[in-house]
């Protein structure tokens, strides 16, 4: 039946249901992941960002909100150039972090 409008699924994040097991595993490997303050330096300097939507700060936020697929999809555009590691004011080794995220969130390693 057509009511003349559609309802899209809720985009709301319910933190009660977010499973952080993998994020905690990531935190054990990369303790600095907690230090991100979402300043966006990494995303601003990222050469892949303007063309692909890759954003390191969004990846870190998405993982903590349980949006793992979204995060991994963004990361697929990373070229591992390491510019984000150079600019991070909190000294997070983002390049190493990206590799660890792949290791944990993509069992098949693709």
């Amino acid at each position: 039946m057509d009511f003349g409008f559609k309802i899209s699924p809720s985009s709301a994040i319910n933190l009660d249901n977010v499973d952080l097991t993998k994020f905690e595993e990531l935190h054990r490997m990369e303790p600095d992941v907690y230090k991100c303050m979402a300043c966006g330096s990494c995303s601003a300097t990222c050469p892949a960002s303007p063309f692909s939507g890759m954003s390191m700060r969004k990846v870190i936020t998405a993982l903590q909100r349980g949006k793992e697929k979204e995060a991994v999809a963004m990361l697929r555009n990373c070229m591992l150039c390491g510019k984000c590691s150079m600019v991070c004011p909190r000294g997070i080794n983002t390049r190493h972090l990206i590799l660890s995220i792949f290791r944990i969130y993509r069992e098949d390693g693709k």
Partner: protein
Amino acid sequence: MKENIVIIGGGIAGLEVAVQLLDLGYKPIVIEKRDRLGGHVADWNLLFPDMIPARDVVGNLIARASEANIFLNTEISFVNKLKDSYNIMLSNGISINTRIIVMTTGFALFDAAKKEEYGYGVYDQVMTNKDLEHWFNTGDDKRVNDSAMNAVGFVHCVGSRDEKARNPQCSKVCCITAIKQAIELKQRFPEAMVYCFYMDLRMFGKKYEDFYINAQRDYGIRFIRGRVSEVSENIDGRVIVKAEDTLSGKPVKVTLDLLVLMAGIICNTDSTRLANMVSLPIDSDGFLKSRDNVAEIIESPRDGIFYAGACTGPKTVPETLAEARAAALKVHLFIKGLK
């Protein structure tokens, strides 16, 4: 000639002014409306950034100020302006003639119940920063249930940066207080998830940024950028918090065992009442107006009336103490100049 110096307010600002004036050889009069000295700081537990006990700071000041004339449970009934002095009538019937008044009337905490959407005084599991400090001090608050503390939230800027709450300015110290309290709660309940809902984090002071990094790295406190829009209660009595996670651009919802509201700093109504009695102007932020907000913050536009501490705006403890010392020096110079 023995000079009367009246210090109005027995918080840390008033006490520090008294201590310095005693050291300079004067005998100041401290007027405090409550039945004890130390003001707001006496209600606090540990002070950032070095987590020293507030009771040590206050206790030390009270001990050093003990030679002053201190009136507890005393309010100012009225003030008469004489030719070049003031006649102050106290609620205990004593009247004082003085040329010098130091206003150390401090601040008031914003009444969190006015932000009805946060449910303070409505839902059982909502408390304020002050209530939490009281719990740190006494361990007595039924809202903190030791056996069920799985998720705790802090709401920054409650009644600060809020034009609708008639308090548009930043209360300055709540960001660091929230982080301090979040760390203290996490230390007591290491398994609990602790969330801070913030708009900006203003880590302006010495070692504050270190506190922030510690909170993130060592305590895993989750910072969510977005102002809480509404709070409701579920059937178990836990609170459901809704906010916009502005970093991911999505609404976020979480169920908490305890919600702590960071009530902001507003001008004490006693300050404004007193300011009216001696015709002191009020600044656009609602606090007492200084002669100049850069170079003469501790001087009122009236000769012989000085300010120290949070009566002119939100201040940290070290800032308040520094202003109190400066005000004591001003009083000393004022007396010297008129001799």
